[in-house]
């Protein structure tokens, strides 16, 4: 990037759209060419052709035919396994939050006590994120045995990567003024942190935790594939036994559960993060009545000099949600098959099982290791590009400000929500069942996941564009399509590039575990090595995965830095 090019960007005033970038921008062009070249190589490497692509969908059609009519006699079993899945996600997320809070304070620039502590805390957060949950669960199941316990530990540890990172960012974005002011009153360090930082970060932390709960529910639905508890085991064994009519019923139970919980948590998140809950934006009769009630309560509390806060709607909602969560957690801990009191005893086993991965042995399965990693990379790239191709039209259709027909927007949003309800690995298991082992079913499963997720991101990105440039272009007499191309797209493009990179990152991580269900890539070798307790090779694979994921993250950061 030349200096002359950077200049006008820095002069932009805050709130104005950035200088539009198009294909003539050399950086963007180079990145695009690189991405397309990598995808072309990938496409070849996994022997993907348009024929296999469409053949895959017809195989899937056949599988669906085998699945009907569904047999629901295993419903109680599916329900029990699904409830176990929910409890695992709940406990795992709670563990992650409990670990993340202190870690985030040590890793946040404005609260970390020492540069060394800062570096270590950051390192721990990055490290936990690098190894996929399913891999962790498979490794832990060697020492902790089969069942939900290793799954919960894996969920808890891996989630620290995201939860800790977002908590850290929340702490770093707090205002300094209240801290300085409370410190000036003679309060101690911890008193000040509790009085000023915690109230500022709580809403965003709750939002993060709920979001992670959603993700963990999907993750825990597939942990059963490595014997780590939940509904995954049931689905896999039914598919293995070619019992498709029963498999579909287990799949639909978890599918409905995930979709329902996502709807609830989205609602909850919106109402907790909402900046002014006490002044709702929609002035309907109910919210007006609620405001009037709150006002009465506050006035009564003031006139009687009540020394505890009155029970206004916001407080009832907060406390109610908190109590509900606590009681669910208690139920989860009581029902689930997991050593709670004696969990600490397993600490030793856990450390030892991680210790046995060292020294790693790269030589024993050298050829498979290289082949597996190349395949994993190829799957990641192909799925990202294919997903993007599908996601762009879907994303445009779900943007409220582009498509003015509300029914179309609602329909496409609904379809996206429904497809998102199936975890990628479950889709992969179904594809593998339909098409046989290999990278193609894995790639197709990832493509579907990518397409729905990206479509949502694209829709959101489009809805964030500013209206003024659009009005300007429309005022010149441009058609809707012209206006979209020249006023909307340039605004949304940087966001799109960075989200594609993010998706690539996510897909490479996901494709490391596809092999566990036979969907191609390094996961196959990993599961095989775990089964025969070849821990040295497992260590080598984990290190290779870590290096790949970390390299992609660095590349992503670099490209984002170049583009923005």
């Amino acid at each position: 990037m030349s200096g002359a090019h950077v200049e006008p960007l820095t002069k932009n005033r805050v709130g104005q759209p950035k200088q539009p970038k198009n294909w003539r921008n050399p950086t963007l062009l180079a990145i695009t060419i690189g991405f397309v070249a990598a995808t072309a190589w990938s496409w070849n490497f996994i022997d993907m052709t348009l024929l296999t692509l469409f053949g895959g969908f017809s195989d899937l059609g056949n599988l669906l035919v085998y699945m009907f009519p569904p047999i629901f006699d295993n419903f109680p079993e599916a329900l029990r396994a699904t409830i176990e899945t929910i409890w695992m996600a709940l406990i795992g997320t709670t563990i992650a939050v409990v670990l993340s809070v202190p870690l985030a304070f040590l890793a946040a620039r404005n609260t970390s006590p020492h540069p060394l502590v800062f570096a270590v805390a950051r390192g721990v957060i990055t490290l936990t994120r690098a190894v996929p949950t399913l891999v962790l669960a498979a490794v832990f199941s060697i020492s902790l045995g089969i069942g939900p316990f290793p799954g919960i530990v894996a969920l808890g540890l891996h989630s620290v990567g995201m939860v800790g990172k977002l908590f850290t960012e929340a702490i770093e974005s707090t205002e300094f003024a209240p801290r300085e002011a409370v410190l000036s009153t003679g309060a101690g360090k911890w008193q000040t942190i509790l009085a000023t930082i915690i109230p500022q970060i709580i809403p965003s932390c709750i939002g993060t935790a709920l979001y992670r709960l959603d993700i963990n529910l999907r993750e825990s639905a597939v942990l059963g594939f490595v014997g780590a508890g939940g509904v995954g085991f049931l689905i896999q064994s039914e598919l293995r036994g070619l019992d498709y009519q029963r498999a579909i019923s287990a799949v639909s139970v978890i599918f409905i559960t995930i979709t329902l919980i996502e709807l609830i948590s989205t609602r909850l998140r919106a109402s907790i993060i909402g900046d002014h809950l006490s002044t709702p934006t929609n002035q309907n009769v109910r919210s007006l009545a609620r405001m009037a009630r709150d006002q009465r309560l506050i006035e009564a509390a003031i006139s009687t000099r009540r020394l505890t806060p009155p029970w206004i709607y916001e407080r009832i909602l907060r406390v109610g949600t908190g109590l509900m969560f606590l009681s669910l957690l208690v139920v989860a801990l009581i029902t689930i098959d997991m050593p709670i009191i004696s969990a600490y005893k397993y600490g030793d086993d856990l450390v030892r099982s991680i210790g046995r991965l060292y020294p790693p042995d790269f030589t024993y399965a050298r050829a498979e290791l290289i082949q597996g990693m190349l395949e994993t990379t190829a799957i990641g790239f192909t799925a990202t590009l294919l997903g993007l191709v599908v996601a762009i039209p879907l994303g445009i259709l779900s943007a409220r400000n582009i498509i003015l027909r509300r029914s179309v927007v609602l329909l496409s949003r609904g379809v996206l929500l429904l497809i998102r309800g199936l975890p990628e690995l479950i889709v992969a298991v179904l594809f593998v069942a339909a098409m046989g082992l290999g990278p193609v079913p894995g790639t197709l499963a990832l493509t579907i996941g990518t397409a729905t997720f990206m479509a949502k991101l694209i829709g959101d990105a489009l809805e964030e564009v500013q209206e003024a440039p659009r009005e300007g272009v429309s005022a010149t007499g441009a058609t809707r399509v012209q206006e979209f191309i020249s006023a909307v797209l340039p605004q949304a493009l940087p966001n799109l590039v960075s989200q594609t990179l993010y998706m690539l990152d996510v897909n490479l991580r996901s494709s490391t575990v596809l092999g566990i269900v036979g969907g191609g890539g390094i996961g196959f070798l990993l599961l095989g090595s775990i089964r025969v307790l070849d821990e040295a090779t497992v260590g080598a694979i984990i290190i290779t995965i870590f290096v790949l994921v970390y390299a992609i993250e660095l590349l992503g950061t670099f490209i984002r830095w170049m583009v923005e």
Partner: protein
Amino acid sequence: MQDSSTSGADPLISLTGVSKRFPNGTLALDNVDLNIPRGQLLSLIGLSGSGKSTLMRHLNGLHRPTSGVVKVMGVEVSSASNRQLRGVRKNIGFVFQQFGLVGRATCLENVLTGALGRLNGPRYGVWSYPKQLRSEAFDHLERVGLVNQAYQRADTLSGGQMQRVAIARSLMQQPQIMLADEPVASLDPESSAQVLDLLLKVAVEEQMTVIVTLHQVELALGWATRIVGLRDGRVVLDRDATTLKQEDAMEVYQRVDKSLDPDVARRPDASGVTQRSVQVAP
């Protein structure tokens, strides 16, 4: 310019040869000597960047001097331990330009944080403070005229109201000294007058020693008993407010006028003439 108002007793606040150089190389305070006796209402004036805020933050140990000694109520703040520092801070109310309220917390909670220095251990939420302190916090909110907002979130208030809540929080400390760093710079004229009046009223009632930094000279002259002017981190003016004319105070700001024209800066005698002639010319 000599300090005209030192009383015989040991001053409540004393700065001796205080200099502060920030890590980026800026010399914010340059060999400042200042004694402030009990009960004084002092106004610090000067341009932004003249060192007013830095000086204030040295008084309660938010900043430590590069050299020199800061003594407040008999404690050497410049070298105090954390424990000693907390002891000093408990007795110093500090009102900031940006209020320093936790927006998501209620006014009552914000006022209660002023009592943390008196309590042991962290607190979170109204109910974690003793009943008697809560009642006290109500009294202070009543005093600043915001008791009706006690259970309202701080970020729903206007700027003037927020600053009054911040004053209530300081009152919660039962301080002997009140520092206010540009307390009205972010407020409209009407709220400014209200906030300054309130500050003065409680200071007189509680017999507090008050230091306020202001960049509006008229406001400073209106109520302070002593005016100290800072320029480039040095004390360039220190007078009894009653004998000080507005023009004299304005001298503190003159550097900017001169620096605009390098010729004038070199020949200070000519400055008045040139400027006047320029004004008349068109």
